[in-house]
């Protein structure tokens, strides 16, 4: 985490002073962006830097679905299966991904390239069905479009 401290100081400047616990979520997000997950050593470093109780960081980490304590595949494929996407074929998309990647939701391919997840509503229901791959939201996906997308990823 140490190499992010300068960046953290800059983020801190725009927050009201005296409420450092507000920085837990933004800093954890940044750490995860950097490392891919949040390691025990990151928590130790954050406790030292922010002087907030360790339990508070653990509590936040365990509550939010986006935080990870373990590494995942290089490409995180997240398929929405809420109502709007289901009405336009999310089931078929999830089935296709399961067959194509030969893993079930929640698993990572043995070569470490792909992790598959199913998620609830990404607020892009007008372009359903949607699949997020890492930070990018792919709209109106079909099995054919997904094949092309996945093959382009290394």
């Amino acid at each position, binding site marked *: 985490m140490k190499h992010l401290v300068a960046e953290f100081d800059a983020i801190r400047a725009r927050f*009201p002073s005296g409420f450092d616990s507000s920085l837990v*979520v933004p800093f954890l997000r940044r750490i995860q962006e950097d490392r891919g997950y949040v390691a025990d050593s990151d928590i130790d470093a954050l406790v030292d830097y922010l002087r907030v109780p360790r339990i508070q960081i653990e509590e936040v980490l365990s509550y939010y679905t986006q935080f990870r304590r373990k590494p995942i595949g290089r490409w995180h494929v997240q398929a929405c299966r809420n*109502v709007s996407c289901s009405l336009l074929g999310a089931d078929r998309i999830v089935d296709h991904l399961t067959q194509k990647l030969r893993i079930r939701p929640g698993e990572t391919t043995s070569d470490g390239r792909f992790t598959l997840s199913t998620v609830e509503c990404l607020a892009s229901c*007008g372009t359903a069905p949607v699949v997020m791959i890492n930070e990018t939201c792919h709209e109106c996906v079909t099995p054919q479009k997904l094949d092309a997308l996945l093959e382009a990823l290394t």
Partner: protein
Amino acid sequence: MSSTKLLMTFPVSATSHTLVEYRERGGYATLEKVLRQMTPTQVNDEITASGIQGRGGAAFPMGRKWGVIHLNDGQPHYLCANADEGEPGTFKDRWILENAPHLLVESMVIAAYALQVRNAFVYMRGEFDLPYRRLAASVDEAYEAGYLGERILGTDVSCDLVIYRGAGSYVCGEASALLTSIEGRKPYPRNRPPRLTVRGLYQRPTVVNNVETLANIVGILRDGAKAFREHGTAKNPGTRLISVSGHVNKPGVYEIEIGYPWRRFIDEDCGGMLHGRALKCVIPGGLSTKVLTAADIATLTLDNESVEAAGSSMGSGGMIVVAEGTCMVRMLQVMLRFYHHESCGQCTPCREGMGWMHRIIDRIVAGDGRPEDLDQMARIARMNDGTTICGMGDAAGYATVGILAKYRDEFDYWIEHKRSRHDGNLECRRSS
């Protein structure tokens, strides 16, 4: 086509969200006028006079929410835009964040001036990528141009704006949970009273408004409350962004004048039903609003009073349109899986009830349903009514009871025959 536009007033292009083009459309002139010519009280009065109701779901009058803030009471006040947009079916705020981010920034600086706020926040859901990048770039542009930061436009008004990104939690769209999330704790919703406008973020008076509600501020102050009230209905003035998804030919975000005819909206504006299928039902304003059948909405108009009189709500404006041939049992299964997943676990009726209903519907779909299951689900749903700290328990219950009441025959059929009356279809295929 509904012609009145207060927010979607310009053609969207690859650069229409930038400060340069926003200024060409008259951007930040209203902020300048307000800071130089109006007092905070005058701004508050204008907002109250406009009669605008919140666009996030609860339709609470913005002026009444703001009116609780005491100016010059010697304590810090906070302002927070709710850009969590987690209610399934809702993606209207995404349109503003992606295409008119400066409209939100300008509106928020005006609101901050009116409410004597030094630190303002935009709480944005963690999954938003382009909306975040667009808004973050706009905030940087606004700081650079002197619309944010110290001594805005040379006046003695200062305001900082932070974009606070969530990390995946439906409950954070609830205003008190959202503030607790910003405080860096597990986002459990809080009991009221005290209201958030009395004790909100860091225990100080805080206004939380939806993105679309806030985005109307510039227009209201530029053209006046009277002009705003010329649109919509007397009780529910203005326009609304409706995000339409599901079985229509042209899903997307539409701005309609409040009071617009519902069927006309679906049949003309949204290009009619997919594959010419008949309309089965509509979830009017986000997943948690009660389903209305095609017959229910035949003569309805899109305004809060009409939709409430029909037993549902305009909610967040997230309209999900469903064609004939769709299996409502499977649909409720998807909904209950979602609510079960998202219950924060603070209140017993919601924590236990969502899981319980989810297990029952899974059992029905697996072919092991029992005749008493439906009454049991209705009972569990009712147990959530008014017994939980936030509205999620109630809302999930209403949505469940709504579907069970209107499509009971499909559930009975599945329990009796161990299969769906509609082949378990959620997708609307061309051939059938």
